[in-house]
């Protein structure tokens, strides 16, 4: 009898324990874990820092953040990802690092995490993530090797992604009865009219400094004007009519821009707009927070937002950062839970309210977010035209990108002929592509 009672008690105990286990929350197994993450020093990630305590409170998972300037972050990751056991459980990567990390097999394919019922949140709603961002930042192995497609896989989630938008000075436009530019022709005409109407003021401030800045500014115009760096057979077409038009557009913008515009990096271009030295700014959406911050901006309340003007097509940029799990991470499942939480509807909205860049359509349309940031609706509209293929994300891009940037810098400062400059870039790019094996099948 006593033995039967003992057996019954043990069975009951086991049942209760198994019920408790069955009802355990998805985070319980990982409570007490400390994740080490690597984020850049960037306005979006500064907002994320404000939200992370909420994650720890909800899940019991601690997060230790190694926040570094972007270039330093990339250097550190180059070293970290090559080790057997990595120090980072989750990393933010800039979009063109995707090509390097995926090609070197250093990022986890996320399918096995989204397939795991214990980890994958059914309410995640991946369809709500902005298509252009996901294809640009998260996918690899599909179309052209770096986009979505039937052979593609997901390696990261956009987080801190950006598109391009036109900021303009409402007061200046109202004062002179100027129309907000909708097309490239209108934008260039207005950019050169402003210095005549407002002596001392530049038309549009753009990045133009040698290297990545000049290349970025050129590519920003190339896609809307109908161009691409390569055709479908990887032959450079950067020197075609659209390429020349994009380079000329950049030259016009710099010539009609603020003083010293040819040496402007992103900081100077934005600074010029924030100081009130320029009437328009065409670049990333990430600047909105600073423009509305009275401690940083002299144009608070004076800036209106419009879509990236149309050339032969609409094509705002896609860029910024994504987050992924390194292959050598020690806490991959907990890292996935953090990644999923941060990019969920709730996380995305919390980060947006703290001043970050949302990655979901629903966040852009959210009434509370729009009440706090009225520009969000325009940004959401621009994102419908976000072009994930506005620049190629291939392993040899760094070298081609640097060449485009330094050559265009010579166009802007040394009056090198545009066609001659782009022909040179195309020739050198073809040699780089050939060496990298892109013509093996031709």
């Amino acid at each position, binding site marked *: 009898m006593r033995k039967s009672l003992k057996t019954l008690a043990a069975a009951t105990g086991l049942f209760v324990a198994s019920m408790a286990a069955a009802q355990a929350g998805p985070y319980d197994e990982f409570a007490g874990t400390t994740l080490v993450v690597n984020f850049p020093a960037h306005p979006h990630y500064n907002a994320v820092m404000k939200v992370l305590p909420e994650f720890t409170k909800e899940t019991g998972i601690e997060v230790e953040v190694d926040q570094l300037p972007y270039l330093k972050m990339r250097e550190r990751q180059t070293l970290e990802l090559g080790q057997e056991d990595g120090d980072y459980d989750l990393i933010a990567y800039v979009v063109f690092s995707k090509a390097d990390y995926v090609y070197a097999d250093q990022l986890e394919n996320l399918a096995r995490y989204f397939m795991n019922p214990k980890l994958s949140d059914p309410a995640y709603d991946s369809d709500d993530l902005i298509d252009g961002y996901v294809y640009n930042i998260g996918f690899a192995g599909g179309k052209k090797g770096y986009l979505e497609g039937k052979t593609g896989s997901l390696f990261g989630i956009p987080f801190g992604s950006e598109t391009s938008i036109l900021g303009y000075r409402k007061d200046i436009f109202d004062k002179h009865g100027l129309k907000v530019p909708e097309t490239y022709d209108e934008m260039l005409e207005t950019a050169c009219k402003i210095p005549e109407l407002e002596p001392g003021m530049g038309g549009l401030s753009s990045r133009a*400094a040698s*290297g990545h800045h000049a290349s970025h500014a050129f590519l920003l115009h190339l896609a809307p004007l109908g161009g691409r760096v390569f055709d479908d057979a990887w032959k450079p077409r950067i020197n075609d009519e659209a390429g020349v038009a994009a380079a000329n557009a950049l030259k016009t913008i710099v010539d009609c821009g603020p*003083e010293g515009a*040819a040496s402007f990096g992103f900081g100077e271009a934005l600074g010029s707009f924030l*100081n009130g030295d320029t009437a328009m700014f065409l670049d990333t959406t990430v600047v909105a927070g600073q423009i509305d911050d009275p401690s940083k901006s002299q144009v608070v309340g004076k800036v209106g937002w419009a879509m990236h003007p149309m050339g032969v097509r609409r094509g705002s940029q896609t860029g910024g950062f994504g987050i992924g799990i390194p292959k050598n991470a020690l806490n991959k499942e907990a890292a996935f839970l953090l990644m999923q939480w941060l990019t969920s509807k709730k996380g995305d909205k919390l980060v947006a309210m703290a001043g970050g860049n949302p990655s979901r359509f629903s966040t852009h349309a959210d009434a509370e977010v729009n009440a706090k940031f009225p520009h969000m609706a325009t940004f959401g509209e621009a994102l419908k035209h976000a072009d994930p293929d506005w620049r190629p994300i291939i*392993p040899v891009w*760094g070298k081609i990108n640097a060449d485009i940037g330094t050559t265009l*810098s*010579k166009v802007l*400062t040394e009056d090198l002929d545009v066609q001659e400059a782009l022909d040179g870039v195309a020739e050198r790019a073809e040699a780089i592509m050939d060496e990298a094996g892109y013509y093996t099948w031709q």
Partner: protein
Amino acid sequence: MNRMTPYLFMAPAAVIIVITLLYPLGYMVYGSFRDWDPSQTIGETEWVGLRNYIVLYGDPAFRESLWVTLKFAFWVVTIEMILGVGLALLLDRNLRGMSVLRTLFILPMMIAPVVVGLMWRYMYHPTVGTINRWLKEFGFSGVDWLGQNALLSVIIADVWQWTPFIFILALAALQSLPSSAIEAARMDGATNWKAIWHIKLPLMMPVLIVTCLLRLIDAFKVLEVILVLTEGGPGLSTEILALRISRTATEFRELGTAAAMSGYLMLLLMTLTAAMFIYTKLVERRAQRLARIVAEAE
């Protein structure tokens, strides 16, 4: 005493030198002969012999970068030597407040290079920068510092930061000169200028050559200030070799090529160092001769 005893005493130092100095150097040289991507361990990489060196030799961007480096190093070292030695000669006297002035002079080299880069970047800013505002205040037009005059701008920033280094060493050299030599020259009716030209400078020369060599080596490796100021632009006009090496390794992910560039840089510096040492020996002999003559005159 065993014949091996001296070597045993030397062994710890030799081991430290091999581990800390020669191993990384050998690693770099070994890497320069391989097709090396950061995702690979060096053992997994393909041996390509001299290919990286040969490709670089024909690479116009690398050659331009090398030329920019030579121009930059020549100008900064020349200007810094003239200013540093000139200031030392000027301030080598016991006047009131001179020690405070000397301390103030050495402040720039205590500032982190990134901060120096940022500081000058803002000072060079075309509209809000102090320099152009002053120029405009005095009726001149603003200068496109970081555009058309980028190389000059980085040279000015470097001269500002590193002239004090030359100044300190030159001053130390001046103060260690035998006062009898200068007094003897004065008694023989030598003017200040003659004393400097014929006595002080020749006696200081061994120190000045080493100082010049140290600055030259440093000028070939400067990175942060230029990275922050111009990022190598416009075009490649300020992309010195250290910046190109850093870009090749991190942006282009071509560690083998970057190692080969470092190999070229090392060869160049070794040649310069060897030339300077030979010259130092010649000058030292001349200085010793001069010292002997001075001693005999006494």
